[in-house]
């Protein structure tokens, strides 16, 4: 007896029904399911009676590689119905795919993502032929809405076509070879009883081919390398994470809709969808009139008829609702037409519609599910480092043992485990103090928090890395938060940030709109890149790429700042300084384009619409990078020396090029001359900004300046003598006002002329 191969799309209700029906009808000896083979001894855990969706999470770490991935299951997953139906008919159920840690799955975050999405050419052609927008609509059109007759044949034809003669990646081939091995062994073992094989449809053609000949013994389970830490266990999952509109590498979109479809069929699902959207919109105070609903319904029915659907499909209902409810131009295309992640800037009605489709169901594990390994790992580590109890802990980060303990505590802090509070220590902005003060309190809340955090990884390091990665992905554009998260990553010692996280970071940097906060991120990243040895981030190249992106973006933003005179913005000046530092320290190794940066600096310095602090900073940037100023600094200083601008301009200049100012002969004298020439009123206007500008000199250099000025003016008296004042400042000010009034009166009467 040969095997019956069912090629499915993961999370497809139609396929789930087909799988369940086939298994019930055939009553096979074996049901083989695409899933991690290392879970086979623990299949009982899966069938304890959880509230779906749940997922099998596998975490892996060795010296070079770290990987975490999920195999999500929901009520209408074909894999799930294969498990339950197989158990009900008394078949031997086995997962037959390589374990999630296997190198062949190194790029896979979600085992049940659509494999065919990687080979899009054929699906695109099919979409054109069927005149639908994208593969999701095509899938509904061909399989979900259609009656179930002949579904198995249609699925097989579809996946044969999609697979076609696409050249598959070696990773897919390794998985298929392993799965085929299982199939051969099961068929041999089952004798003349049937075997049902449930795998992703993309793999089906290859499996049918490979299952013919080869070794018929049971395959061995690959063993992880000796130094690796591997853990697989169940975690609760949610519809939000299942939804392709939200996540990377997801399968079918709109889980709430398909749950409805699974439970009560396409007609009811369409109704339920309309109801859910209406309820959500009305809940938000958006008017949805009965006339609108009638129009939406009529349009949906019309669309279903045009597209040849017996019942309105998902896109028919959505199109109908969008036609009826959106009464203005949209800024972004409809998300169900384009597919993929929902883009920012969507119409509020559309956003609510997508949320209604996605649903908010969250899975719950059965109480007798074994505790996630994180709970044990944390307890062990706390005991091993002597941090088990309550009390205050002082750590010296210079000592390796204390650094280790600090990292553990930081990981727990990032995981939001109660009772771990840092009172003081290094922060992203301040000076790098090498000591930390912590307060630990043991509490009963820790266990639930740890169980919840268990979904992120097997040990604190992995979990903290996953949490940070998630937060980075969730805060696009907010550079201040991002800088903090980067610093947290360094404190936690989570090692290299990889793959998706770096993409997210680069995207956030590329979209940054505020120069000041971008500068902060750049400064943090640069510090971590330069002091890699100190922070042990191991992320040299990763941070390098981030720095390069941030420099490029900062220069782009600097050139776009307009608006003329404005008070100096220290954050903006700091950003320019960070750009300068990056160019000075990292231009060669990271391949930063210094010429382009100088071009930007010169243009900004010469642009009269730019704020004075930025112009000064740009001028200073050019001066300090070249070693000589692009234009005559004397002329530049004179050109900006009006009371309202001078201080702000100088603040930028001093922040970037104070060395050059100090060591250029005649600069100080020139400044002295210009300040001297100001009227008293003008001086009072300029004073606060000037104070701020000279604040960029450290005290020693300020003293040096003062000493030189005193020498210049008095020819010898020591500075401190001049600084000492016998009268109160108020008295001096009153005296000066009196002098001024006398002068004015004398001038009015023509008694003095100057």
């Amino acid at each position: 007896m040969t095997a019956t191969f069912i090629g499915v799309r993961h999370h497809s209700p139609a396929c789930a029904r087909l799988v369940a029906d086939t298994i019930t009808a055939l009553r096979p000896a074996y049901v083989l399911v695409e899933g991690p083979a290392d879970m086979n001894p623990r299949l009982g855990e899966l069938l304890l009676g959880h509230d779906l969706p749940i997922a099998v999470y596998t975490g892996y770490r060795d010296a070079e590689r770290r990987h975490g991935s999920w195999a999500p299951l929901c009520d209408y997953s074909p894999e799930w119905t294969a498990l339950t139906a197989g158990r009900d008919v008394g078949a031997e159920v086995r997962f037959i795919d390589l374990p999630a840690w296997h190198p062949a799955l190194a790029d896979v975050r979600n085992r049940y993502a659509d494999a065919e999405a990687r080979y899009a050419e054929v699906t695109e052609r099919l979409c054109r032929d069927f005149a639908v927008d994208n593969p999701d609509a095509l899938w509904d059109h061909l399989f979900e809405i259609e009656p179930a007759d002949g579904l198995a044949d249609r699925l097989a034809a579809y996946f044969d076509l999609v697979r076609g003669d696409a050249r598959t990646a070696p990773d897919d081939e390794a998985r298929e070879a392993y799965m085929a091995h299982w199939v051969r062994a099961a068929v041999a073992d089952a004798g003349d009883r049937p075997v049902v094989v449930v795998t992703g449809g993309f793999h089906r053609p290859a499996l049918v081919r490979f299952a013919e000949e080869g070794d018929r013994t049971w395959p061995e389970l690959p063993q992880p390398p000796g130094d690796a830490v591997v853990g697989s266990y169940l975690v609760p999952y949610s519809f939000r994470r299942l939804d392709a509109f939200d996540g990377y590498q997801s399968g079918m979109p709109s889980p709430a809709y398909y749950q409805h479809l699974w439970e009560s069929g396409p007609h009811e699902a369409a109704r339920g969808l309309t109801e859910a959207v209406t309820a959500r919109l009305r809940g938000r105070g958006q008017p949805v009139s009965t006339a609108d609903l009638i129009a939406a319904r009529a349009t949906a029915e019309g669309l279903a008829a045009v597209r040849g659907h017996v019942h309105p499909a998902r896109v028919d209902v959505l199109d109908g609702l969008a036609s009826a409810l959106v009464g203005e131009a949209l800024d972004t295309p409809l998300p169900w037409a384009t597919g993929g992640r929902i883009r920012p800037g969507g119409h509020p009605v559309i956003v609510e519609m997508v949320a209604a489709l996605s649903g908010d169901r969250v899975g719950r594990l059965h109480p007798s599910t074994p505790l996630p390994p994180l709970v044990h790992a944390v307890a062990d580590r706390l005991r091993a480092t002597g941090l088990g109890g309550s009390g205050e802990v002082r750590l010296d980060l210079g000592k390796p043992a204390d650094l280790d303990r600090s990292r553990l505590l930081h990981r727990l802090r990032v995981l939001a485990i109660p009772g771990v509070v840092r009172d003081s220590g290094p922060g992203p902005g301040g000076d790098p103090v090498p000591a930390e003060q912590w307060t630990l309190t043991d509490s009963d809340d820790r266990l639930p928090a740890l169980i919840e955090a268990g979904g992120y990884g097997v040990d604190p390091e992995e979990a903290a890395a996953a949490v940070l990665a998630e937060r980075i992905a969730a805060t696009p554009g907010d550079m201040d938060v991002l800088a903090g998260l980067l610093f947290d990553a360094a404190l936690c010692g989570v090692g290299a940030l990889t793959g998706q996280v770096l993409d997210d970071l680069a995207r956030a940097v590329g979209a940054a709109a505020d120069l000041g906060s971008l500068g902060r991120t750049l400064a943090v990243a640069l510090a971590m890149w330069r002091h890699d040895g100190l922070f042990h981030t191991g992320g040299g190249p990763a941070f390098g790429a981030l720095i390069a992106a941030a420099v490029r973006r900062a220069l782009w933003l600097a050139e776009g700042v307009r608006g003329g005179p404005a008070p100096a913005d220290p954050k903006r000046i700091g950003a320019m300084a960070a750009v300068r530092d990056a160019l000075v320290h990292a231009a060669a190794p990271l391949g930063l384009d210094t010429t382009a940066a100088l071009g930007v600096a010169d243009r900004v310095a010469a642009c009269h619409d730019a704020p004075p602090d930025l112009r000064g900073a740009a001028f200073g940037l050019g001066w300090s990078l070249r070693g000589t100023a692009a234009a005559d600094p004397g002329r530049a200083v004179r050109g900006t020396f009006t009371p309202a601008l001078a201080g702000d301009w100088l603040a930028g200049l001093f922040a970037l090029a104070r060395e050059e100012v100090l060591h250029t002969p005649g600069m100080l004298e020139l400044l002295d001359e210009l300040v001297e020439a100001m009227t008293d009123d003008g001086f009072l206007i300029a004073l606060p900004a000037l104070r701020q500008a000279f604040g960029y000199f450290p005290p020693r250099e300020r003293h040096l300046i003062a000493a030189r000025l005193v020498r210049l003016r008095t020819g010898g008296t020591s500075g401190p003598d001049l600084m000492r004042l016998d009268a109160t400042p108020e008295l001096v000010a009153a005296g000066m006002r009196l002098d001024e009034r006398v002068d004015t009166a004398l001038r009015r009467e023509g008694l003095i002329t100057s």
Partner: protein
Amino acid sequence: MNDHVQRPPAEVRYADELARLRDADDGARPPGWALSLRAARRFVIGDEKLGVTRKFVGDPSLIDRALVTLATSRGLMLVGEPGTAKSLLSELLAAAVSGTSTLTIQGGAATTEDQIKYSWNYALLVAEGPSPRSLVAAPLLRGMAEGRVVRFEEITRCPLEVQDCLLSPLSDRVLAIPELTGPDAMVFAREGFSVIATANTRDRGVNEMSAALKRRFNFETVFPIADFGTELSLVEAEATALLQRSGVGALPHRDVLEVLVRAFRELRQGQTARGDATDRLSGVMSTAEAVSVAHAVGLRGWFLRGEPGTAADLVTCLAGTAAKDSPDDLAKLRRYLEHQGSGPLYDARHLLPG
């Protein structure tokens, strides 16, 4: 004198395709329609088997929604950036649904009710008094009486009170002619009558439509072409046709067109291909504009130097088409070119005038 029309209407240009579709049409037709919904859809998005060309590049679902809207009692409002082929789409839809696309009202500041509903032949009016003979029907009246689709271009450029004369034809499907008496005084819309209006989002005029009128339309937003390859081929094909008509012997190289289309897309979306946010120009950066720039680039190269247009020609043409008279846009364009870092546009950045 020649009798070549510069641009015949869609039903004439594609008469043979329409005929083939009509012959092969076995679907149910909504009352008053010349084609079934499915055949009308095939007319717009193409059907290789029947030799029907693809005339509109965009999501097929947009066409579905538009056609279904026309079959219901609401009007169809096509909105979008200028140059996204809204008018072409409305012409094609009208030709497919009623077999004629010439019942068109061009909206503008000077559009009056006369041009929409009806006016009079004053000589006859003075001689005979008001009668159906002296009545001059405008597109709306004709569309209602004959049961055809009426196109209203740039509706939001009309004054509000003129727009609102569509209210009762759209909701009650009747137009009153108070000057006439008896049965002629009311023109009831026949099956097949509907309205396709277009409006562009740049005029910010959509906001000025009254809520009552908005309610009688389904809005469909037409987006710029989403796929780079599709837009590039379209620009290439259109520019080639234009250049051949202008007698240019050498077409710009494909890489110049690629640079052009990429620059247009980036400046339109305010986002580079890599995903960095950039400036969005306030000027129109549509595919149609890209075609006209490609045309200009080809003309410059050929007639000034006798060779294909280059990236340098492109930069020179960009200022006139992209920035127009806005110094802000010119500054943004300069910043965009400067931050290219390398490539043909960067090398030619000094040619940007001003």
